[in-house]
């Protein structure tokens, strides 16, 4: 029972919120925000309490110390998103949908956690869908915005297609191995043509989730249309979860054809990083901008996977952790500014530093972290990823990736230029950010700094991860 405590806790608070939703009078809805966040905080903290690990349902569900940690990381991300979205939920048009928002969000989180700790493709599929479908609803959350609806459509349709293809792949895997349990598929997966075909379909589905080129096209549009906090949630938590499970699967189930998938990754990494950057360069809308940058970041994540070692997996997890904080920091600033002023393009940010120095500073640090500039954590994350790939001898790949970091630095600097260098005749007015917003940003900043400086985090992760060999 305690083995799946994370999911149970989440389900518990979801149910609680549902009940509250039912019994709460319509004019008091917004008072649900604080208790919701508190509950989530409790869950988060409880999640860190060490507990038993093991297998349930005859292997369909499994947890290990590693998976528990992954779940905690996801919890952190979700928690920060919840904190950040408080400001947005207070807006009048969202008043009566607050608890829906939380319920949907939490259910996706539950889905992800099941996906991460699945021991069987069925469980995995359920988790995946549970993590995806509510997100479409969330993306279309702002009913009165055409963009939001469009985002919803694009998300649900493309995700449906991708999951269809993924399932087709799974069916082939099943057909060739005769089982769906990871533990049994692994040995049986010797790489016959049909299996490989199945793997390709499966991989395409996963690539869709972590938006790798060429399966990324939905990303930018959905991020732009969806509410900012949803975009940030999509970009960090769901992407993170997908990356985790993909790593685990590649390292366990598909380890027999490691040579082949590493070759594929090689090409996909180059494509993803380069195209992501090239598109990001010319974006004006910050959400779109961050969407493309997040695509490029996904490419970097793969660098760790291709490392194929325990160290490689550790760097992936570590980088996702860093990336959660950095990206949420950036998105947090974008979201509050877009909530207060509706400004979302880079030009609107001209001279931001002179009116709102704190926000601009947070933004800059987050962007530096994304670009991998010391002393913030992003530097360490990137460096370790490159080290992981170099460890495997892929120096050329690393070189390409590093050159791409320069391009990425260029467009991150464009934003910084707008905030610090440019002057504007009508800059974004000075405004005071409320408790939750500042809390969220402070969390991100502490994360950005602490994770890099204190090597403990990485060592713990490295201790728990495992590699191919």
């Amino acid at each position: 029972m305690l083995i799946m405590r994370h999911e149970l806790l989440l389900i518990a608070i979801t149910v609680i919120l549902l009940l509250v939703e039912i019994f709460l009078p319509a004019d008091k809805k917004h008072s649900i925000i604080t208790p919701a966040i508190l509950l989530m905080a409790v869950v988060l903290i409880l999640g860190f309490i060490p507990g038993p690990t093991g297998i349930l349902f005859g292997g369909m569900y499994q947890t290990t110390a590693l998976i528990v940690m992954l779940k905690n990381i996801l919890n952190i991300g979700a928690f920060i998103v919840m904190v950040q979205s408080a400001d947005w939920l207070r807006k009048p048009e969202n008043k009566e949908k607050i608890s829906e928002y939380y319920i949907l969000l939490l259910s996706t989180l539950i889905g992800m956690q099941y996906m991460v700790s699945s021991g069987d493709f069925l469980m995995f599929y359920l988790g995946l869908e549970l993590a995806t479908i509510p997100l479409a609803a969330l993306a279309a959350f702002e009913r009165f915005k055409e963009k939001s609806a469009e985002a919803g459509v694009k998300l649900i349709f493309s995700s449906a297609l991708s999951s269809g293809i993924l399932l087709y792949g799974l069916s082939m895997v099943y057909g060739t191995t005769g089982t769906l349990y990871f533990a049994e598929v692994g040995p049986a997966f010797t790489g016959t043509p049909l299996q490989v075909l199945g793997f390709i379909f499966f991989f395409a589905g996963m690539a869709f989730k972590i938006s790798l080129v060429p399966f990324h096209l939905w990303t930018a549009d959905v991020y732009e249309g969806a509410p900012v906090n949803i975009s940030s949630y999509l970009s960090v938590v769901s992407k993170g979860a997908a990356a985790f499970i993909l790593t685990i699967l590649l390292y366990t189930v598909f380890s027999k054809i490691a040579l082949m998938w590493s070759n594929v990754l090689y090409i996909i990494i180059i494509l993803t990083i380069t195209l992501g950057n090239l598109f990001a360069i010319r974006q004006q809308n910050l959400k779109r901008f961050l969407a493309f940058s997040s695509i490029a970041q996904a490419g970097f994540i793969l660098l760790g996977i291709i490392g194929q070692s325990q160290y490689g997996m550790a760097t992936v997890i570590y980088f996702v952790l860093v990336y959660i904080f950095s990206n949420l920091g950036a998105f947090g600033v974008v979201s509050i500014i877009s909530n207060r002023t509706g400004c979302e393009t880079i030009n609107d940010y001209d001279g931001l530093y002179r009116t709102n120095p704190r926000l601009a500073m947070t933004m800059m640090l987050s962007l530096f972290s994304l670009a991998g500039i010391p002393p913030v954590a992003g530097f360490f994350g990137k460096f370790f990823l490159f080290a992981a790939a170099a460890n495997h001898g892929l120096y050329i790949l690393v070189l390409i990736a590093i050159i791409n970091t320069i391009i990425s630095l260029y467009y991150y600097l464009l934003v910084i230029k707008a905030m610090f260098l440019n002057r504007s005749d009508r800059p974004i007015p000075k405004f005071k950010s409320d408790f939750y917003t500042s809390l969220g940003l402070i969390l991100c900043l502490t994360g950005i700094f602490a994770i890099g400086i204190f090597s403990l985090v990485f060592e713990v992760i490295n201790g728990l991860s495992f590699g191919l060999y």
Partner: protein
Amino acid sequence: MFEGVPIHWFLVLSTLMFFIGIYGFLVRKNLITMLMSIELILNSVCINFVAFNKILYPGHLEGMFFTLFIIAVAAAEASVAIAIIINIYRRLVNIDVEKMDEMKY
């Protein structure tokens, strides 16, 4: 029934359905029909699972269960999709997929 029907037939059928679905998804402009083509894809998957399970691995029922779950999930998916489509319809009074390119580049 289906005794002695070789597995290839099922596979051919499912493959056909799969690609028909994909084709439909790519060419039909109406969101609802696109949704239907997705259902086609999912059903082809179901056929696969069932066929594999029934013919290759009659021992246990994983394939069957998977099929059931797929059907359920597909229903949920469809419901959400349709909800969103309705919303779209409210916004811009048609549901032509090509009209939804406000966000691009």
